[in-house]
């Protein structure tokens, strides 16, 4: 008892460890008892100062603990910068032996107090005993942040821009197991004057951590997280330095990286792994020679940016130690089957380089070039064809004969003009068309007809019907199920009405958005119905739709107003308003018939429809010039006037004669200007309700939510695209003329950042055409204006149009021509303009278009061999052919 007390009070770390190790079983038990009893009082004496009793306590505790579980029972607290304490604690644990340590590490990584505060200790133990990285992902993350990354960062985890006056205290902590069972520990606080010096101090931990992290999927991201995607993390320079100094085993590191790349991690991880591989292979590319096959195996599945690096490495390796003909051909087959055009160019350039340097492999290289002809990119095919034609004569006749068969095999994929030119340039190829070698043809699905409207049937008032409708509503939230339920409730017996009003109506309620006028109207109407039914009142439902999209036939409205007029039972104001905006515009006779009813509500309806009904809310498009700085709009207003660049938007005219219904909100009827346009981007879940509110005015719906469609085109958008995909089909299901808002919504969607948006846009364009609501002249003008303003991107538009051109046919030619025209007219044609030209070249022969486009002719006559120019010449040729 006296011995342990004395050691803790005034001994040294080393003497504590030595003494405790030498005790017999009884002494150990007694000492443990004393330590347990006095833990609290010793802990109070502090943790951080040098030579404090608490560390002696911990060293003794670790040495005496029966097992790892007992060792974990004491919370260690921090132990600051005391290198001696750290080292002796490490030694105390390491001396317990492999099994004990294994259990200790396992428990420590799961223990909330041990981990992550003592990561250094755990890392040193794992490295010394060659234990696998503990499963807890926080361990490497914490080590990387607190140690490695901290060398390059300030206290706020920002990379240091300048290293003037750099000085860091770096803790070195390593344990080496000696053959006699002893453990040699090195623990010191080393002052580093550069991050590289610091990293060298940490090299043992880093070496082990790097190996362990590369063995884990996406593990490399723990090392270099949050760095700009295209930048090289500064730690990599240090890594290169450590590799050069031999502190890392270059071959083992390369092996780890190849294994990680084969696994196929996240894109960012792959990019980092490829960068590290390039770094490791920098001084001697031959180090990669044993991995040639594996590198080739990475080409099909790795991300394009990683493949770019891998291809570069293969190219360098090929220079130092040439690949076999089969290996190179495989690289060609894989790379030319990928979609990245940059990689195609790289591979072609490699092939041409090999042609000169490796004449013995020319047949295989030519085979690789023939594979390149399969790439679906006209300018590239043309380039390859020129390369093939130029080199063909350098092959032996027997080789030429063998290659002609390969050439014929890819013929169906080669642009006919390119193939014809090729056949003219080299002998042995047939230039006559081969019908049987045409690519597989699938039938083109006919343009879908407009989805027909289904009449809304009154269902029998039965308990089973309620349940069925509620189940339908829960699954689809459709206008149909919602309105049928309301209709059922209004026709129910008084007692049932009272009982069901609250539970049923509460299921139907949409969330009321303060700044979304249509949602407010929907909510207030439901509230009105629920209140009346809960009272047991008879509610004359006149807004019950005639069709499943919410539309009311004028005749139906006439009948209902006549019936309630006779009964002297006026409709609820919200229900009446909804009936008016839902009704298809009546003809003059029907308006006259409304007047003959004589009730106040019938007269209001007649006046409203006589003034034009909802058609009064006309939309007009305009370009808003935004010369000033971009500003943040208030949350509920769109950003048309503050985006900092010109925008194509619409103005929505208000109702000149709004329905004269007292005490209901009519802000929505005022319309808007670009400056006051609603934000409308956050489509709520109730786009079907919205269609049901304005079933004959898809144009007004689109106008209200236009900013949401515009936002889907932003490069950073990752959410609007999905909203657009939900809302656009519903808006199209609302009928009525399609004006600028609907056309703009479709164009914005087609140019969306997300695929969902572009697919919805393509579908909507086909719908507009099928419903005969597509206004070609308007679309032509709008596409020109939007491309000019930069809100529609030609590349994305071309991708979307490519999906529908076969189904839609020549009706889209004016739109395509206009888009091409404006893109070529711009001082610097926007990126992706050549894709529009390529698309036009694809469709023009089938559509039998022959015409002259001045700007195209001018562009085609220009000098150069950019993709834009090559495609412009091809289209010009086809239009003139």
């Amino acid at each position, binding site marked *: 008892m006296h011995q342990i007390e004395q050691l803790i009070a005034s001994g040294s770390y080393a003497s504590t460890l030595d003494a405790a190790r030498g005790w017999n079983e009884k002494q150990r038990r007694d000492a443990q008892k004393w330590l347990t009893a006095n833990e609290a009082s010793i802990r109070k004496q502090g943790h951080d100062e040098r030579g404090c009793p608490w560390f002696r306590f911990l060293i003794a505790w670790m040495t005496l603990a029966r097992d790892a579980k007992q060792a974990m029972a004491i919370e260690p607290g921090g132990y600051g910068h005391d290198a001696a304490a750290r080292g002796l604690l490490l030694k105390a644990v390491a001396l317990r032996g492999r099994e004990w340590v294994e259990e200790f590490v396992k428990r420590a990584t799961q223990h909330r107090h041990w981990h992550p505060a003592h990561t250094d200790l755990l890392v040193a133990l794992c490295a010394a005993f060659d234990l696998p990285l503990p*499963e807890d*992902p926080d361990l490497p993350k914490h080590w990387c942040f607190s140690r490695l990354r901290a060398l390059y960062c300030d206290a706020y985890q920002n990379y240091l821009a300048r290293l003037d006056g750099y000085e860091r205290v770096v803790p070195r902590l390593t344990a080496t197991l000696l053959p006699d069972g002893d453990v040699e520990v090195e623990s010191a606080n080393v002052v580093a004057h550069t991050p590289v010096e610091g990293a060298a101090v940490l090299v043992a931990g880093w070496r082990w951590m790097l190996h362990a992290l590369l063995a*884990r*999927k*996406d593990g490399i991201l723990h090392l270099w997280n949050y760095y700009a995607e295209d930048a090289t993390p500064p730690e990599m320079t240090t890594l290169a330095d450590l590799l050069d100094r031999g502190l890392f085993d270059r071959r083992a590191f390369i092996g780890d990286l*190849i*294994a990680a790349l*084969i*696994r196929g*991690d996240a894109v960012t991880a792959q990019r980092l792994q490829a960068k590290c591989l390039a770094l490791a292979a920098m001084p001697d590319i031959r180090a990669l020679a044993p*991995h040639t*096959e*594996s590198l080739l*195996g*990475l080409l*099909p*599945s790795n991300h394009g940016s990683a493949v770019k690096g891998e291809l570069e490495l293969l190219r360098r390796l090929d220079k130092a130690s040439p690949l076999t003909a*089969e*290996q190179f051909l*495989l690289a060609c087959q*894989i790379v030319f*089957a*990928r*979609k990245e055009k940059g990689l195609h160019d790289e591979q072609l350039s490699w092939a041409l380089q090999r042609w000169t340097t490796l004449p013995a492999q020319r047949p295989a290289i030519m085979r690789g070039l023939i594979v390149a002809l*399969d790439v*679906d990119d006209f300018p590239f095919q043309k380039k390859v064809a020129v390369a093939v034609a130029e080199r063909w004569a350098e092959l032996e006749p027997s080789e030429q004969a063998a290659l002609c068969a390969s050439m014929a095999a890819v013929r169906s*994929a080669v642009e006919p003009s390119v193939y014809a030119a090729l056949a003219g340039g080299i002998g042995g190829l047939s230039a006559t068309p081969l019908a049987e070698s045409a*690519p*597989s*043809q*699938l*039938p*083109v*699905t006919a343009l*879908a007809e407009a*989805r027909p409207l289904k009449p809304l049937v009154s269902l029998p008032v039965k*308990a*089973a019907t309620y*349940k*069925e409708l*509620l*189940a*339908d509503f*829960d*699954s689809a939230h459709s206008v149909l199920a919602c309105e049928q339920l309301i209709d059922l409730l209004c026709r129910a017996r008084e007692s049932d009405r009272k009982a069901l009003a609250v539970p049923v109506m509460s299921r139907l309620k949409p969330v009321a958005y303060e700044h979304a006028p249509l949602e407010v109207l929907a909510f207030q109407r439901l509230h009105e119905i629920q209140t009346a039914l809960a009272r047991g009142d008879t509610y004359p439902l006149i807004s019950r739709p005639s069709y499943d999209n919410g539309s009311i036939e004028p005749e139906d409205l006439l009948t209902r107003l006549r019936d309630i007029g006779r009964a002297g039972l006026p409709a609820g104001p919200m229900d009446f308003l909804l009936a008016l905006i839902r009704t298809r515009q009546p003809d003059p006779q029907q308006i006259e018939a409304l007047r003959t009813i004589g009730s106040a509500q019938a007269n209001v309806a007649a006046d409203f429809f006589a003034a034009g009904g909802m058609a009064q809310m006309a939309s007009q498009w305009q370009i808003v010039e935004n010369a000033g700085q971009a500003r943040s709009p208030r949350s509920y207003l769109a950003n048309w006037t503050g985006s900092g660049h010109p925008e194509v938007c619409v103005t929505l005219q208000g109702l000149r004669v709004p329905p004269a219904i007292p005490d209901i909100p009519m802000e929505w009827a005022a319309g808007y200007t670009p400056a006051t346009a609603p934000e409308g981007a956050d489509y709520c879940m109730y786009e079907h309700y919205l269609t049901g509110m304005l079933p004959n005015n898809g144009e007004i719906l689109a106008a209200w939510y236009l900013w949401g469609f515009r936002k889907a085109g932003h490069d950073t958008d990752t959410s609007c695209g999905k909203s657009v*995909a939900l809302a656009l*089909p519903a808006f199209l299901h609302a009928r009525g003329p399609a004006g600028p808002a609907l056309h703009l919504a479709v164009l914005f969607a087609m140019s969306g950042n*997300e*695929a*969902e948006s*572009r*697919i*919805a846009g*393509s*579908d909507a364009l086909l719908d507009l055409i099928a419903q005969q609501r597509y206004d070609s002249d308007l679309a032509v003008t709008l596409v020109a204006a939007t491309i000019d303003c930069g809100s529609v991107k030609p590349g994305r538009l071309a*991708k979307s149009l*490519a*999906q529908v051109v*076969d*189904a839609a046919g020549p009706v889209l030619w004016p739109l395509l021509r206009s888009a091409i025209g404006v893109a070529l007219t711009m001082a610097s044609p926007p990126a992706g303009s050549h894709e529009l030209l390529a698309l036009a070249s694809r469709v023009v022969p089938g559509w039998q278009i022959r015409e002259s486009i001045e700007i195209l002719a001018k562009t085609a006559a220009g000098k150069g061999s950019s993709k834009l120019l090559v495609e412009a010449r091809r289209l010009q040729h086809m239009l003139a052919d």
Partner: protein
Amino acid sequence: MIEDTLGTYPAASSYTRLATHDSLVLQTATGLTPHGLVTHPLFFSGNLSRPDVAAAGLRALVEIVGTRYYKPVPDVVWKDPVVTANGDRLRCEVFSACNGVYARLDLLAETFNGAVLGFGTTNVDINPPLAQALAAIRAHDTLHLNVGPTELTLTTAADQYVERKVQLPERWIRALAETQSIAAMLGLRARLDATAWQRFINALPMAGGGAGVSMWLLPAGTTLRQTGRPHAEAIALPGSARLTAVKRLSHLIQAVKIYGPAIDVDTQAAVSAWEFFLPGARLLLMLSPEPYRGFSGEGALLHALSQAETDDALTLGALLAWEAAIEPAVLAQETGFSAERVHHGLQALATAGQVGFDLHEQRYFHRQLPYTQSRLEKNYPRLDAAKALVASGSVRPDSTHHRVRSEDHDQWVSFPDGKPRCTCTFWGKYKGSRGPCKHILAVQLYLESVAGTTSRV
């Protein structure tokens, strides 16, 4: 995990480069063969004609089994493929970690240079180091494949290898039965040649979360048009990124066939199957109707299980011996059953996981997993609940509906246009896409019991 029956591996599967050739040993666990349960059966030992195809196919399976497409996570627990040797071909089946992608690699007779394979079903060990080594196998290599232990393995394994148990999760069992049942209902929707496939896949958006973009595809000239809405001729692509594993084989693909169920404009989601033709092999990927849905929960078997003709299935099952393509006509002749009865019997066997369906051949193949039908049925509490409802007399016919008293409330089941419909929340939410609810199942069981036994030939 099913560990009790399947046991352990005698050693880790390995790939070794030798002086004269390369050696790939896929270790087997306990397998079912025509001779009953065999520990570590040997299905094949010989050279492969296209090692690169086998290696790339296995790598694609490894990628799928190690990927959670829905809500991806980096650390996925490794699972072992189920391998069936049908005498002339070897079929390896796996599911993705999210259970939403089923993949089957069929290595055909050409791959084995016409050599004879064994018969049986077991699991093989494919470990991460082996998966990495497969990347280095090329077409011109001479590769000796052992599916089963080598003599060397059996003599040295005990000293050097720490036994690893077979990793076959419970839900794979249900999913293996579900997928075959679903596959039998699919029809050919499109066929693309290598060029058309390349163009299609290169234009396919893959970004958008773990599973990528969900869409419908419509035939359009030389390719498939992407659309957001179902259509009579449409094919579902629920999660474009779930086809990513195929990229490993992109340069080997000769043609692609796409299968799907009949679609109409009201179809919310649908399954699709993609069959890739490779030199001497075929790879089938079946995608669940939505990325977040695993095959084990599809409920496609529920109706069939409720009607399973156990006796017929047993009779048919006894006649099967790991046939690569089961001929229903031959079975009909051997048993004296009608074609319809054989068809139902095979369906019942599929629900028991005893046969798989080969879309290309349009035939069932024998693949017997080492568990019984009762083990499968215990995974279907809905069916148990339906049987309990019938037994307690909770099903009562009404004028147009059937009223099912469940707990303290009623649900109404009707069959408008012959299609079932229920008023319960489960049916309202899924509309039958996860199989019938317990109320519909109960009414179906009730109607069958009322109508008496089904007429038989």
